[in-house]
């Protein structure tokens, strides 16, 4: 008879070991999945996790991509992790990401073709404000009417996607684009372009922002009263209320921050790697960031590492698609599987497994 015994405090060893265990289990299960699809599992795993960084031919192209993919994931996941820690579930980051991109691109297109130093900073502010405002909708509804923030934030993703489509087809359509959907390419508008900061590394302002966010979140959670309140609320909402935490203020702060960061990620993406507002420029980063946040154990440093790993699976997935004909959806299922395994093995962190007969209580 296997029995679970609650640990008085979460195990420190397993807190660090479970993400690794989950990754290994996912590789095994993913290998089985790839074998089932008729691909050599070892080769597929190597293509996804090793080749993007070390393949003699492709690595020079795909290595910079790592930061390009990981940047937005880390930026969004850092914001989400603050709320998740306090039991505030913003799962609409994808929507905030889209709105941030629309607002930022809107500023750029409004100034086009003016060449001035202040265009890009204004875009950054607009992007953050856009994401923040979109996240304020579930936040205000939650604080005023106790409406479930999970459902509202998620439903707003679909609204944002429709808005994006209407922008790409209507208001923001490139007047010189021959009627094709999609805005002007911001890459070709120097004042607004979010180019590489260091050539050949993939490092752009969004990646820099992600690193800054990691540091700020670390300081916030470990050295600041607000971080303490967030952690306290997550562990015991009642105790937090006695300690003087105002739950509504916390909801507004957590949702607002995560929205602003997601909006920033969207802005940096649209001004950089994506280049333009198009119907499907969003790649589901807002959802993958949820996996990143959990894989990183809601800890800033963990999220940094998890974001890099997830970024790797994106590039590796592309590479595997190109070299092995592995379907793109397989990598999506693979990422979902990772979250399953992580949540499953997490039982080891909070419970001790006892094997033996249950003695009578």
């Amino acid at each position, binding site marked *: 008879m296997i029995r679970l015994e609650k640990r008085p405090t979460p195990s420190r060893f397993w807190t660090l070991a479970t993400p690794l265990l989950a990754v290994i289990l996912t590789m095994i299960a993913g290998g089985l999945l790839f074998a089932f699809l008729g691909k050599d599992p070892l080769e597929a795993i190597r293509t996804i996790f090793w080749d993007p960084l070390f393949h003699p031919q492709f690595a020079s192209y795909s290595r910079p991509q790592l930061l390009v993919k990981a940047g937005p994931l880390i930026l969004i996941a850092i914001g989400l992790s603050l709320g998740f820690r306090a039991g505030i579930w913003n799962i609409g980051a994808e929507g905030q990401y889209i709105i941030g991109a629309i607002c930022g691109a809107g500023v750029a297109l409004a100034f086009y073709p003016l060449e001035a130093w202040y265009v890009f900073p204004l875009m950054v502010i607009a992007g953050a404000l856009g994401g923040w405002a979109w996240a304020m909708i579930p936040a205000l509804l939650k604080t005023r009417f106790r409406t479930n923030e999970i*459902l509202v934030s998620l439903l707003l993703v679909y609204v944002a996607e429709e808005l994006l489509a209407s922008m790409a087809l209507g208001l923001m359509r490139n007047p010189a684009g021959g009627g094709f959907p999609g805005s002007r390419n911001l890459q070709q508008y120097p004042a607004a372009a979010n180019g590489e900061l260091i050539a050949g590394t993939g490092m752009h302002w969004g990646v820099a922002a992600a690193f800054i966010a990691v540091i700020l979140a670390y300081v916030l959670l470990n050295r600041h009263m607000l971080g303490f309140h967030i952690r306290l609320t997550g562990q015991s909402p009642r105790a937090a209320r006695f300690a003087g935490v105002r739950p509504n203020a916390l909801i507004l702060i957590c949702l607002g921050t995560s929205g602003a960061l997601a909006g920033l990620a969207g802005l940096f993406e649209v001004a950089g790697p994506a280049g333009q507002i198009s119907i499907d420029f969003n790649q589901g980063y807002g959802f993958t960031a949820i996996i990143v946040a959990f894989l990183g154990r809601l800890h800033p440093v963990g999220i940094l590492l998890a974001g890099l790993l997830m970024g790797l699976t994106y590039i590796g997935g592309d590479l595997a698609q190109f070299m092995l004909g592995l379907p793109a959806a397989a990598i*999506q299922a693979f990422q*979902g599987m990772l979250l399953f395994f992580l949540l499953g093995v997490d039982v080891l962190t909070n419970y001790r497994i006892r094997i033996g007969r249950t003695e009578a209580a």
Partner: protein
Amino acid sequence: MDLSTINPLVLIASLMVAATPILLAALGELVVEKAGVLNLGVEGMMITGAICGFAIAVETQSPALGFLAAMAGAALLSLIFGVLTQILLANQVATGLALTLFGLGLSALLGQGYNGLKPPPTGKLDLGPLGDVPVLGKVLFSHDMIVYVSLALVVAVWAMLRYTRLGLILRAVGENHDAAHALGYKVVRIRLAAITFGGACAGLGGAYLSLVRVPQWTDGMTAGAGWIALAIVVFASWKPGRALLGAYLFGGVTVLQLNLQAAGLAVPVQYLSMSPYLITILVLVIMSADRGRAALSAPACLGRVFHASS
């Protein structure tokens, strides 16, 4: 714009079709939540059901087998959620999200090669003389089997929760799992059964989308239907009859905006397409603004982890 092209009778008939997938998924989730489990993976289960049903129906040319396969596939998927949350005691919100993310990926993977195919037609149910009743016959009695199954399910779930011992046990588990455990009920087993039922219902709803409503397979075709089903459970205050009302209201909005698009209303299509989501949010707000009721009607142990210490 020409509003006269919109025929109210056709509107009602197509409203029933549009509402059925969401009604089925909402009923399943309602039972799951009554047992005290919050499964946010409805979207993932629906889309898995949609592709399982579609694939099997195309391969066997039998819609009935397709619907059965959809229920089985989605129920199987929901068991992953069940094992993780009930046996490995994982966080239900996170696991539900994982189920949705995984389901979307898995369905896209399974659905390769099924894009653009036509499924075998699902026959209308012949209700004999009822179908010949003027006006009503066309609106109410000329649908396929699943529409009536969903309506029967509303009654069955309502009666089960209200009048049967099973319903009482289910509610006890959802309201206070520790007390139910002390009374000797197998909390985990009952919850696993409820989760599987919820999965089967969501799968059936998903297959209805891909086999009847659309009828076609495209990646991510559920487009938030699962999340709307979750919202409808809240709207319904966990009552089956109100879930029917909510689903039909939503179906009405969906069909109406599609009709307005077709009639050429001078509003960009995208703004009409987002209206069902906005109205769902609005309804959620109205429901939750009523302070006492929302708090009272939610099962007390909703989303809480059950761990029997002895």
